[in-house]
């Protein structure tokens, strides 16, 4: 069975996490490391995908600055999105050559693992035809944006656990004028760590890999 190392980066800046991903992608391409699945929680950040339209940003740069929101243009797919505290961000760095050489299957799998994890908390989430992401009755709860280079993935997904949804007002999420929700807004009280734990389990199942957690968590 293929192996995948899960790491929690904790609270980390978007750019910092991105640099780390670049490093790991380079190492993954050279076969120096197994697949990786990184978790992160970002401070308030609005990111624009490669195909994003600035028109979907509803605030000026000055307004974002004064609200304490960083703005970053990235090389992932998808449009504009918001990251912030209370949101589980997942960055799988997988060599799809060892799974399926199929980007659509990959995106569907990212949706599936989020749907399965949400089901563990009693939330029935599904897909919305033509709108990649994870949806609960027309409300978006999980967003996806991926970059692939030589079949190695980076970027990933963002699932709203207890995200402050007000921040989405600064953007038209993914360029869609559909509302955004979170687990908390749906009445489910869950901690980031619990959600990460379920996501890791379903990730292992969906991608048919063995999840390795670094066994040392407490060291002096």
């Amino acid at each position: 069975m293929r192996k995948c190392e899960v790491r929690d980066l904790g609270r980390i800046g978007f750019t910092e996490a991105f640099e780390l991903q670049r490093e790991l992608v380079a190492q993954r391409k050279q076969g120096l490391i197994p697949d990786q699945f990184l978790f992160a929680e970002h401070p308030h950040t609005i990111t624009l995908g490669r195909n994003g339209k600035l028109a979907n940003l509803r605030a000026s740069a000055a307004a974002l600055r004064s609200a304490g929101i960083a703005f970053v243009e990235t090389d992932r797919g998808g449009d504009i999105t918001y990251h912030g505290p209370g949101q589980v961000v997942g960055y799988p760095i997988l060599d799809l050559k060892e799974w399926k050489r199929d980007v659509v299957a990959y995106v569907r799998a990212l949706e599936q693992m989020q749907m399965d994890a949400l089901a563990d908390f009693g939330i029935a989430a599904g897909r919305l035809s033509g709108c990649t992401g994870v949806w609960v009755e027309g409300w978006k709860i999980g967003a996806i944006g991926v970059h692939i280079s030589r079949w190695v993935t980076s970027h990933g997904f963002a699932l709203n656990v207890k995200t402050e949804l007000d921040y989405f007002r600064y953007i038209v999420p993914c360029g869609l004028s559909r509302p955004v929700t979170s687990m908390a807004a749906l009445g489910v009280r869950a901690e980031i760590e619990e959600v990460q734990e379920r996501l890791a389990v379903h990730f292992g199942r969906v991608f048919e890999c063995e999840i390795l957690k670094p066994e040392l968590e407490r060291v002096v």
Partner: protein
Amino acid sequence: MTDVVMPQMGESIVEGTLTKWLKKAGERVERDEPLFEISTDKVDTEIPAPAAGTLAEVLIGEGTTVAINTVVARIDENGAAVVAAKVGETPAPPPPSPPPAAEEPVGPLSPLVRRMAREHNVDLARMRGTGTGGRITKQDLEAYLAQRAATPAPPPPAPPPPVEARVPVPPPRAEQAKVRFEPMSVMRQKIAEHMVLSKRTSAHVTTVHRVDMTRVARMRDKHKDDFQARYGMSLTYLPFVARAAAEALRAYPIVNASVEGTNIVHHNEINIGIAVALENGLIVPVIRNADEKTVVGLQRAIVDLAARARSRQLKPDEVHGGTFSITNFGSFGSIFATPVINQPQVAILGVGLVEKAPVIVDDAIAIRWQCYIALTFDHRLIDGALGDQFTGKVKSVLENWSEEVL
């Protein structure tokens, strides 16, 4: 000529949108070097060049959606042949890896590499990359910097023709380098992360008390042979200190707490982590309910956990759930040190070398067994006075040791 086609990125995919050309027509490309980007359903993909050569024709513009297998560009391989021939004519020793010298840095550079190059004032055009298509990677840059550092005077930058410029600067190979790069092990990365996290999280303050260990030393001397005979292990000072710490934790339970956000988490169990040095790192296995154990029980637990830590046979729950930690740097000869708190705990006790020293007892100079104990505490939660009361309690238990060991 090689046709470059829109690739099929999945079974059900019939078309793709070309979002960005990473090379311009007429530019040189290496095989496998990223050539353009396509977008399919929230996924951006870099497509590598199928062959080396000159990007002769760009047939599809950015933003255009085309069916898979549509020819989007053509690469002229002869362009590559011409360059290769030129390189072949130069008398320079053939470079170990193929990418021919380029006037400009080859391929897109990561922001990290650009930044490093700027900071170190490196002319990337003079470097040869080992990444895809001769791309300059961080490793290349690090190796280059290492070599540059090793060379006393940087060779004067020879004027224009880059092919000639390479001749007086033969790439010094690894054996001349004064440094060696090694990726950190997972454990090392974990330790690094944890240390920095701790320093960033807690307000570290260290207080040091001097402890007269004479009574403990006598107790240990009295029992050590019996102990060795009965349990097959030597009796050290560490279980005495752990016992004293457990008693002090009972007296000052806040030192046994942890911080979560703006909450203080009080732990009803006293679980003491003992830092164990490994060959290439360290680990802190935990003695659960340490306050319920005798010196014998503590010594056995310490020896058992340390042995299994070194043979990597600890179970996951044996390295979790500690509420306080002890580190015994004295065993390496240190008199005292300022340990780093093991998050999310709020204090760690360091034990220095136990040695004979002259001290004043009743206005006379006496020879006593002395030791410094250092408590690093999180000043967010523990005030200085409390830190010293706790450490004073440890000291007083050790100095007035009366409990029999066997």
